């Protein structure tokens, strides 16, 4: 009797918890909207208008999703997973607004309110889009070059002992130098800033990809190679169909490390030499003391880099489907 009643209670509190989770997003949006409307009473309507619209949109979407989710299991699972995080993000925006626009605790123009950042983002969207596009081209060309060079040198160093003998010392001495330290040399050597920036990104990517590819190849389980030999495998099969597939998990770690290094090098190169891209945009906006634009560019950068990271994760999940359930990172 008491057991069943406590079970019912547990079930009830569980379903309560679910409703808390689902309602968290619209509730947070509503709180943020009320705070925003209160805080922005003193401000110009144009400043505040787009942020009001944004919060209203989130609130509307949140309510709509809560209304629709009983008939849509996929959405419900997504919401259960994401709602707490999104709600906290909205509340953080709300706190930020209270500190900046509300209580004016932080000095302007260095710390604009979220409404100001959103306005900068929308008003300068053409240039921001153009900068993102330039960054993307530069990043991808540099990354691709670095990955190709890294895979080739990594496979050679991992497989051939003479390549290991001569390549390893060079890798150990030259590799750890941050690619950005080469900027003075790159400026002298290369015909254009774009070209040298791509080269620097490639260099930054090349080192971790080479290192991890070489270690993956040389750590191939000897018994895989023995089995392949007794199946009649020649050297090409051993390298391309045994050692490289066996090294793929390690290669992906190198690709992720290289991606992080490439972001860093991209932004530094754009800040220092290249006259386009998000890194350039940040320092340009800072030069005009337009800190709303600086933060807008940082928001774009966060979305841009994390999207690229996500794409690489998807590629990994696809390529390493045979490891499903074996690795966790």
């Amino acid at each position, binding site marked *: 009797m008491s057991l069943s009643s406590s079970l019912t209670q547990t079930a009830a509190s569980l379903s309560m918890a679910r409703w808390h989770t689902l309602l968290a997003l619209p509730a947070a949006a509503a709180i943020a909207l009320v705070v925003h409307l209160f805080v922005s009473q003193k401000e110009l309507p144009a400043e505040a208008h787009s942020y009001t619209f944004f919060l209203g949109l989130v609130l509307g979407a949140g309510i709509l999703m809560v209304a629709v989710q009983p008939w849509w299991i996929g959405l419900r699972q997504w919401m259960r997973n994401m709602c707490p995080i999104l709600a906290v993000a909205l509340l953080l925006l709300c706190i930020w607004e209270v500190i900046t626009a509300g209580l004016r605790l932080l000095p302007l123009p260095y710390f604009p309110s979220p409404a100001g950042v959103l306005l900068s983002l929308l008003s300068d969207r053409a240039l921001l889009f153009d900068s993102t596009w330039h960054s993307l081209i530069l990043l991808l060309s540099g990354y691709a070059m670095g990955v190709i060079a890294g895979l080739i040198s990594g496979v050679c160093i991992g497989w051939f002992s003479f390549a290991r003998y001569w390549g390893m010392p060079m890798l150990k001495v030259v590799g750890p130098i941050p690619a950005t330290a080469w900027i003075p040399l790159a400026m002298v050597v290369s015909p254009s800033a774009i070209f040298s920036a791509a080269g620097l990104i490639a260099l930054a990517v090349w080192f971790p990809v080479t290192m991890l590819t070489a270690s993956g190849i040389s750590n191939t389980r000897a*018994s895989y190679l023995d*089995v392949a030999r*007794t*199946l*009649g495998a020649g050297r090409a099969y051993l390298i391309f169909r045994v050692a490289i597939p066996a090294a793929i998990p390690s290669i992906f770690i190198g690709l992720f490390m290289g991606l992080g290094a490439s972001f860093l090098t991209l932004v530094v190169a754009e800040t220092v030499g290249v006259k386009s891209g998000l890194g350039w945009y940040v320092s340009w906006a800072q030069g005009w003391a337009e800190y709303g634009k600086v933060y807008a560019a940082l928001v774009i950068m966060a979305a841009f880099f994390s999207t690229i990271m996500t794409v690489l994760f998807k590629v990994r999940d696809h390529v390493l489907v045979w*490891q*499903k*359930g074996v690795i966790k990172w």
Partner: protein
Amino acid sequence: MVAIVEGEASSLRVQEVSKSFPAPDDPLSRPLALDAVSVSLAAGELVSLVGPSGCGKSTLLRLIAGLDAPDSGVLLIGQELIASPSAERGLVFQDPNLFPWLTVRRNIEAGLVARGVLREKRDEVEEFMRLVGLEGFANAYPHHLSGGMAQRVALARALINHPKVLLLDEPLGALDAFTRMRMQDEVLRLWQARRTTMLLVTHDIDEAIYMSDRIVIMTQRPGRIERTIPIALERPRDRSRPEFLRLRGDILELLHFAGKTN
């Protein structure tokens, strides 16, 4: 003893083979792992190699596979000297060593791909998957397979090359008792259907008696051939028959004796 037809294509002869390895604690000394080992297998014969662990059974198999070279002595398949690994000598380990990045089908195809004959022999892949009862698992990855299934894939992968000799290094050692007995029958069925010459390393004396034409007993390190025992029992063999049990007792005693003198 089975008469060895001199030079028959898939007979195996090991003559006076010795092999040493550097000692792990003292690189200057090279203790012998195999000491003048001679053993011959007639074409189509199934021979078991039994002995205390560390007696060089696996070393001998690696030499026959061509993965290592002997210090002295000669290894022959038919009339041909064994110099390097080849698809005509298949090897199955205790760990199935399936390539985890390939599906069951692609694992079985591996030998055909390695030899560049996949296009001509694609039909055989189906045949071998059927032979080892894995038709339904063509697209499964190895980490989804049980130990027995994985070992069957490993057998099919080795057999698809139609090796003259199949070397089995404790292939059933990691399986539970029931799977193990089922797999023994399965290996016997494959052997009877194809008459591949097989050399089976095992720790399990019952398995050796149940399966082989002859049992070769090795001494403790350095490995020498202690004795060869022909098994003249009718197949399929009954593990509880008195003849079976008597052989078992004899071999156990012999191994115990071999352990004492060395």
